[in-house]
């Protein structure tokens, strides 16, 4: 009786413990020994698109090119280049496409301003619509003098006398 139960429970126990083990596993050691440098590589890498796997940044990607570019980042940071200089280096080679936040230029104005323009247009349309509706409702609600008199009478409970 206890054997089958055991068999059932063991995998469940293992399954429960596995994530615990994964949580406590050591992260892969950074390639460069300097954690500050590695943090900068990570931060810059998150701003740069991997061109091989286009919906990943190069910090996340393990594509060959991304690894090479991370190596470039490491070397250039170690050589004392600023973030802007490194980004310029990347843009010179791969174009604005490599940046997850493209610069504001004539060709990208629509990209940056588009959502706000759209929001503004919709807000304007909504406002106008609400106003006309309110005006129409107000117009519909105006009563003639006769109706006013009748309403007053109703409110005073004099309906029957009318």
């Amino acid at each position: 009786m206890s054997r089958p139960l055991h068999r059932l429970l063991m995998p469940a126990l293992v399954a429960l413990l596995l994530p615990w083990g994964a949580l406590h596993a050591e992260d892969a050691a950074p390639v460069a020994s300097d954690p500050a440098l590695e943090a900068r590589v990570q931060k810059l890498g998150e701003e740069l698109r991997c061109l091989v796997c286009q919906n990943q940044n190069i910090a996340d990607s393990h594509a060959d090119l991304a690894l090479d570019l991370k190596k470039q980042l490491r070397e250039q940071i170690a050589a004392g280049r600023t973030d802007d200089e490194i980004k310029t280096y990347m843009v010179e080679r791969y174009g604005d496409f490599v940046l997850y936040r493209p610069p504001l230029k004539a060709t990208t104005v629509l990209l940056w301003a588009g959502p706000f323009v759209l929001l503004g247009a919709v807000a304007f349309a909504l406002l106008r619509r609400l106003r006309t509706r309110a005006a129409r409702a107000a117009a519909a609600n105006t009563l003639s003098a006769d109706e006013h008199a009748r309403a007053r009478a109703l409110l005073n409970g004099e309906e029957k006398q009318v």
Partner: protein
Amino acid sequence: MNRFLWPLGIFVVLAGFLFAGLYLNPREVPSPLIGKPVPAFSAPQLADPGKTFSPADMKGKVWLVNVWASWCVSCRQEHPLLVELGKSGVVPMIGLHYKDERDAGLKWLAQHGDPYLLSAHDRDGRVAIDFGVYGTPETFIVDKAGVIRYKHTGPLTPEKLRDDILPRVKQLEAAT
């Protein structure tokens, strides 16, 4: 009536954009290098590591740069076309042997044919980064002054070669 036409209109516009998007190639990233001088580099030649190649060696000629590797499957796909182009002698082509072992590259050329004037060996991919290479094969046209005029990413097709590459080469060669 208007109330029903609006969503329909928005839908049609959106569908139009999405439909056009189906035929765009997201891998075709416009290269910022077009119109810029070809990156200066010096790399050992594949066949003769004692010698180096530098783009300055090609000054005064219109030439192609083709990035290839023995591990690159699409390179194999376009290679017969390149071999044909090499045989025709229309335009000199320099190979950039990208992130590959020398032996593997030489063996590959022996097996599939060598259309290149020579290949520069870019073992660690550093030269290719300067060329903004992100997907092999890639082909560049460089003019007589050493300026990059055109870039194609992905395997060349006979149509691409006939309609885009060769006319440009001819035009650039005619220019002084």
